[in-house]
């Protein structure tokens, strides 16, 4: 399998006059690859710089040193083929759900075609009939779905997701995970997904990149070649889960 994203010797350092000099280094010497069409989870403690890394790969920020290659080319700025799904507030609150999703296909000239496509994607994420609603009139889960629809309608090569379900309640979060797996099966998209939830990573990922606390390095890269649905309470997955818990500093077998 070819690699969609290659990270080589990446450093991110803030030049700001921060009090502790150790804090200046956010990302230290990262090297890893993301296989094409994989579902890769970035797992690490809160505030460890995973978001910074994702922003750099998405082209919103520059590395201080090192290379980020997508399809073998260095990243230069955001790209409508690499869509970012934010933790919250990614939808424009002054547009309706329909108008927001339509932004993903704004390059299409045919207004009728755009309209039909938006309706199709609204239906796909279970938001039929909610096109005319503004984001603040939708529930948290519905907002996430609308944003995922806006991303998917753009037919992206890469989908960046920065703890997209972090603000949702437990059951909604599980439902969204399930739908992300369906999305990954249906669309030929490489997904880079940030989470600090170990179980979420185990349920979703083909590959888990495990980060340390700041200054952030890579602790381990794990490949998870197991079919879905996954039961992480027994067998090899349970062993992997215990392994990750231990790596993240939880020693008692929970």
């Amino acid at each position, binding site marked *: 399998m070819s690699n969609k994203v290659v990270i080589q010797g990446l450093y991110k350092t803030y030049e700001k006059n921060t009090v502790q000099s150790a804090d200046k280094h956010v990302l230290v010497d990262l090297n890893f690859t993301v296989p094409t069409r994989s579902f890769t989870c970035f797992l690490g403690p809160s505030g460890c710089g995973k978001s910074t890394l994702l*922003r750099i790969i998405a082209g919103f920020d520059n590395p201080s040193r090192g290379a980020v290659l997508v399809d073998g080319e260095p990243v230069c700025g955001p790209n409508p083929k690499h869509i970012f799904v934010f933790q919250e507030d990614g*939808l*424009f609150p*002054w547009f309706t759900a329909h108008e927001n999703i339509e932004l993903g296909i704004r390059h299409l000239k045919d207004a009728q075609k755009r309209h039909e496509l938006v309706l199709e994607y609204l239906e796909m994420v279970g938001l039929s009939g909610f096109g005319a609603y*503004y984001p603040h009139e939708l529930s948290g889960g519905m907002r996430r779905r609308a944003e995922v629809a806006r991303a998917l309608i753009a037919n992206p090569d890469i989908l960046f997701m920065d703890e997209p379900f972090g603000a949702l309640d437990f059951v909604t979060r599980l439902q969204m995970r399930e739908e992300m797996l369906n999305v990954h099966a249906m669309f030929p998209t490489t997904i880079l997904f940030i989470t600090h939830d170990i179980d979420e990573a185990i349920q979703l990922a083909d590959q888990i990149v495990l980060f340390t606390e700041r200054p952030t390095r890579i602790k381990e890269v794990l490949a998870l070649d197991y079919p879905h649905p996954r039961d992480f309470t027994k067998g090899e997955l349970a062993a992997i889960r215990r392994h990750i818990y231990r790596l993240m500093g939880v020693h008692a077998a929970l």
Partner: protein
Amino acid sequence: MRANGLKKWFEERWSAFLLSFLILVLWETAVHVFEIKPERFPGVFQILKGLWELIQDGRLLDYVVASLFRVTWGYLLAVGLAVPLGIFLGVKPFWRRTINPIVQFLRPISPLAWTPIALMWLGIGDYPAIFLIFLAVFFPMVLFTTSGVAGINPTYLYAASNFGIAGHELYSRVILQAALPEIITGLRITLGTAWLVIVAAEMIAVKSGLGYLIVDARNSLRMDQVLGGMFVIGLIGLLLDNVVRQLEKLPSIRWKRLKQ
């Protein structure tokens, strides 16, 4: 639906109406009981009679139109210039640092302090009044717009760049829209200020308008018309405020308030 809305409207306001009515009754009674002379403090019916006179000889309508005309021009000119400037300052930190202190300095100077300059430059008439309204609206409007734009959640800008929204589209569909709730708040507050200032300006700079009506009535010892004029000023101010408040209820504006 409509009948329901009317019912709700009345349910929210009946107590205010009742209190206003009671005050008017008390007022009228007090004027009679204590035998206060109309030159000192007229009763409610005398005020209404004085207003009716003004309506009949056409002066009231002329003055209302004159005042609204000046406010409209001064306000639109100021908003038309302040919003683009505010957006510019909002997106350019260097120019914000350079120009904002000057705007901050000029804003607390009451527009009325500019009256001598306005009269000297522009003479007596509509222009000095319009100029004073312009000053009353321009500086606060620049600040409201600047802070609205500078405070845009960066996530919106990331999302915009992600979908390739740039150039004039970035301004019209993202930056302006994101700052709009704050701009609308500015529009409402400065419209109130403009209405305050026009009355004062017309007392000094022109021979027409509601401000002039007050001065003129006082000079001819018509307290009933002074108070009548005040009543009309209050009523129009209330109406203006209500119009802009409707804008704040639009769903594409309201999100900001819900978030706070």
